């Protein structure tokens, strides 16, 4: 009798997360839980100023504190050629400042001491003499003709521009705009935000002089990339480096880059020959590590009277902070921002991007952004709504006219990607029906009688996941494939290892489900391990929603290799030829004689006890998966809001989410990802941003100023699904890690703008804080939110 796939925890099973067993018992093993004999503790002194020359550093008082072992300065690092390190974007970043500090929170010194209290006492005792320089907190200041040069350390740098980049067809787009019936324009700023993993970053470096081996426990979403980077920076041979990324308390892209703290702890361990632990605090995390967004848009759509979009023009400026340290495919300077408008049928498009340096912490591609796709889709959906309003056309109808049709796949996007499959109009319709679109105008009129403004916002988008095929996607030349290794033991139990690294996504649960689907081994019989570079196969790590599309596919492929070998063993056991063997979940049988069969577990036993002549014993293999294309999930998010015009406070009435992420491996985990993403989307739209005052002080350096919504204010989410399998992924999955974070914000912002469009307001920059909404209502005009914060 055939096995019930859901019962064994295969595809479609909402299996409980196996990792939660240890997490909810407090038995997780995070970097800070690791204690090594003789371990010392490190704390970093950070710059209080955004831009200043370092005149002198006096560490004598710190050295005088009993228990302080070493104080590391930029000068010490420089003596070992480690004051600067390469970034993942072909730039350099200061490890410890030597010449200048370039943002508030930059690493200036590090104290290594017997315990973390003494390390902090040591940090307080260091005296640094700074000569303040004018700080730059936005691109306008950075590009001013008399702007101070931030990167005077770089030989050929004469201004604050990091790069200029363009994509698309400039002339074709110009032509279309010249002929358009109407041009709709929109300017806005997607503010800087920051991932908020519960666990901040940290490392324990343990250099063993006797074996010459360096072991580093580290909060990394991509331990193999770190191994390569450390090998290059610290000039230690790669096989003498072991990176262990144990349980991670969230990542959200924050834990992809290599941070100064890691490098300093490594050098400290080498110099002191003792393990050195560095655990960043929350403020350190918020003011110095990888952030998201901070991009400015001038967008234009060329429109025909009947609502057809003829062309797109996007001019963008991105604020990268003091160093260009994005972790993204090297070929694309501003990530996959040119995936914008991929769900719409638009013939021509052109995009420019200028990256600038400012006196702010480096980064830009963190926070569930899928390599800047978050900005792309936000810009897209804000431009779409503005265009519909400018045309005086119904926003749903405007989208319907322009969405790619089901029969058109694979479809070339306006900027040249190839989308794989989808049912866009159907998703939109499911969403409209669920929210009660046709009745909304009545509700709006009712609310008006109570003095309240109602609005409905839609966001429809497809985003590119699963970077990516080796032709186009690499980081510093290393191709972005991924891997899996599967060992089936003789009793039919198994261990699976991948080059990905879960930070809460539930890989231990879902990877086992893929194996169960491919081999019929119950998911509970499969243990999944990731994060140790000495044992796991090479992989590029987990971010940008790439693990199910890439590593997950590798899990399928390695399982199929195992099945192919097991089939030969089955033929041997059943004494028939290979061609006469049939497969059903968990079992091989003889064609035409279904009763004569052997289970996958029996094959496993035979692999170690009774292999056919000439066959290698054992049942294990690995697979490297190089995806043929990106995967393209689609989503339609709809929010309704009510505004109190006297305070500018807006409340969410309802949120409907329709996600098509292809085949769902574990529906419960998928729903968790969507709800988490929508919560973040709501946060960004409503309250969350990192801004700066004119002195370059970070406003948002702690969780009283940088707001995470709690269960109290987070709205309820109504989830719906449509399933269009990915045609090129082995199990038809597309990925879901970031869809709601990417597509969600525009739904909330569009809803507020829908409520305000009758009074002439076209844009308020996120977050839509009550005072901004109130100002827009009072003045009937747009409200911009770029830094510096106004003190008036």
């Amino acid at each position, binding site marked *: 009798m055939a096995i019930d796939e859901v019962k064994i925890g295969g595809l479609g099973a909402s299996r409980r997360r196996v990792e939660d067993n240890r997490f909810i018992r407090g038995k997780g093993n995070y970097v800070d839980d690791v204690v090594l004999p003789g371990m010392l503790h490190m704390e970093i002194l950070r710059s209080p100023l955004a831009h200043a020359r370092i005149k002198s550093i006096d560490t004598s008082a710190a050295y005088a504190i009993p228990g302080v072992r070493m104080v590391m300065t930029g000068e010490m690092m420089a003596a070992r050629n480690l004051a600067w390190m390469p970034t993942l974007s072909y730039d350099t970043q200061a490890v410890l400042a030597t010449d200048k500090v370039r943002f508030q929170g930059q690493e200036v010194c590090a104290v290594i001491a017997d315990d973390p209290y003494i*390390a902090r*006492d040591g940090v307080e005792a260091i005296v640094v003499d700074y000569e303040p320089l004018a700080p730059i907190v936005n691109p306008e200041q950075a590009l001013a003709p008399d702007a101070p040069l931030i990167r005077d350390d770089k030989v050929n740098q004469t201004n604050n521009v990091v790069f200029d980049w363009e994509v698309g067809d400039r002339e074709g787009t110009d032509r279309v705009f010249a002929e358009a019936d109407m041009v709709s324009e929109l300017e806005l700023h997607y503010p800087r935000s920051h991932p908020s993993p519960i666990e901040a970053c940290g490392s324990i470096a343990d250099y063993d002089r006797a074996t010459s081996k360096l072991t580093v426990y580290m909060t990394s979403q991509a331990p193999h990339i770190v191994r390569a980077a450390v090998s290059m920076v610290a000039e230690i041979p790669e096989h003498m480096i072991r990176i262990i990324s144990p349980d991670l308390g969230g990542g959200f892209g924050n834990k992809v880059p290599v941070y100064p703290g890691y490098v300093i702890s490594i050098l400290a361990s080498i110099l002191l020959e003792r393990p050195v632990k560095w655990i960043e605090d929350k403020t350190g995390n918020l003011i110095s590590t990888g952030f998201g967004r901070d991009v400015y848009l001038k967008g234009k759509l060329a429109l025909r009277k009947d609502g057809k979009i003829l062309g797109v023009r996007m001019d963008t400026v991105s604020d990268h902070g003091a160093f260009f340290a994005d972790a993204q495919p090297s070929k694309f300077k501003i990530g996959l921002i040119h995936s914008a408008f991929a769900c719409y049928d638009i013939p021509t498009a052109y995009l420019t991007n200028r990256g600038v340096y400012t006196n702010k912490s480096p980064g830009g591609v963190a926070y569930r952004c899928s390599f800047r796709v978050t900005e792309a889709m936000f810009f897209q959906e804000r431009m779409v709504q503005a265009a519909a309003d400018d045309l005086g056309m119904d926003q749903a109808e405007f989208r319907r006219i322009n969405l790619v049709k089901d029969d058109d796949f694979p479809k070339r996007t306006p900027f040249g990607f190839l989308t794989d499959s989808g049912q866009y109009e159907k998703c939109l319709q499911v969403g409209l029906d669920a929210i009660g679109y046709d009745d909304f105008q009545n509700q709006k009129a009712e609310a008006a009688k109570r003095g309240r403004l109602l609005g409905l916002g839609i966001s429809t988008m497809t985003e590119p996941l699963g970077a990516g095929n080796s032709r186009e996607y690499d980081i510093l030349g290393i191709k972005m494939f991924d891997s899996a290794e599967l060992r089936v033991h003789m009793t039919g139990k198994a261990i699976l290892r991948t080059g990905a690294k879960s930070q809460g996504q539930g890989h231990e649960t879902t990877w086992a489900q893929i194996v169960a689907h491919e081999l019929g081994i119950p998911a509970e019989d499969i243990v999944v391990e990731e994060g140790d570079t000495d044992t796991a196969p090479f992989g590029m790590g987990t971010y940008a929603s790439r693990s199910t599309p890439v590593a997950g596919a590798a899990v399928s492929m390695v399982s199929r290799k195992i099945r192919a070998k097991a089939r030969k063993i089955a033929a041997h056991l059943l004494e028939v030829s290979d061609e006469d063997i049939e497969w059903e979940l968990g079992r091989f049988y003889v064609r035409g004689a279904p009763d004569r069969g052997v289970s996958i577990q029996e094959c496993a036993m035979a692999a170690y006890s009774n292999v056919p002549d000439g066959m290698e014993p054992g049942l294990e293999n690995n697979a490297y998966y190089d995806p043929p294309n990106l995967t393209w999930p689609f989503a339609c998010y709809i929010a309704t809001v009510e505004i109190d015009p006297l305070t500018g406070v807006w409340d969410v009435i309802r949120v409907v989410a329709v996600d098509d992420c292809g085949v769902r491996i574990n529906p419960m985990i998928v729903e968790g990802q969507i709800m988490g993403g929508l919560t973040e989307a709501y946060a960004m739209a409503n309250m969350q941003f990192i801004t700066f005052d004119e002195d370059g002080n970070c406003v948002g350096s702690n969780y009283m100023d940088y707001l995470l919504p709690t269960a109290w*204010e987070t709205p309820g989410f109504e989830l719906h699904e449509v399933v269009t399998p990915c045609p090129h992924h082995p199990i038809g999955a597309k990925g879901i890690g970031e869809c709601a974070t990417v597509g969600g914000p525009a739904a909330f912002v569009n809803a507020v703008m829908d409520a305000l469009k009758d009074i002439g307001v076209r844009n308020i920059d996120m977050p839509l804080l*009550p005072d901004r909404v109130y100002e827009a209502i009072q003045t009937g005009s747009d409200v911009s939110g770029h830094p510096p914060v106004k003190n008036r």
Partner: protein
Amino acid sequence: MYPSRFRYEAPTSIEEAIALLSSLEDAKVLAGGQSLIPMMKLRFANPANLVDINNIPDLGYHRADSDGSFRIGALCRHADLEKSKILGEHQPLLAAAAPLVADPIVRTRGTFVGSVCHADPQGDWASCMVALGGSIVAQGPSGKRTIPVKDFVSGPFTTVLAHNEIAVEAVIPPAQGTRTGGYLKLERRVGDFATAAAAVSLDMSDGVVKDAGIGLTGVGAQTINASEAAEALIGSRLEDDVVERAAELAAAATSPRGDHRGSADYKRHIISTFVSRIIANVQRAEMQVA
């Protein structure tokens, strides 16, 4: 958290606590710890000695006395007030504010009296106390003294308490007639300090305002006592023009600073809107009773 080195004492009587505060250098009272501990974590506060008063018995009360006054002991937690069965009946303003102070986690530890002692211009309870004309009873080596809250807070994060005095209770005077009122707070999120908030207390008799008080949160360098606005209400029947005038006077009493929560003008506007709204809510409730 990694604060500076400090010494910790846990006395079991007020007298012992006062003696410790008198003898120890640079000592601070530790009540709920919800303001002091975060400041020590950030090393903004580095007291050499902590005198923890949590082991002193019989300080967790809140009660209405027979003379009509209302008393809140030094270890009465925000959550005790939030869950109180008697608070709403006697002190509607406090009952309105209780669920808006901090978040549920902080409320289980933080104390009412500690909040007033902390004198944060964004603290909610001090505004309520100002509106209610309440006082703090301070006890030191030479006995007790009662200090009205409007005089107790001497500046941002500073009070008139001597280094060896403990605030043992808060006292709210009896109502002149029926006490009503309310608290409205604009916060960006649960657990956030106020962008702006208003506390209005009204003692009413036969539809006439016998006594009134207005305290404002987050719109100046310290808790604001909008006494002119409150006086404008006294003797009135809360006619529309009177309320409007009081709301304007309340806004005029503020001196907010523009920041990432909103401009100064916006905060002023919120205060006048909230003062009018609280009074409108009170009137609506009265109408329902009548």
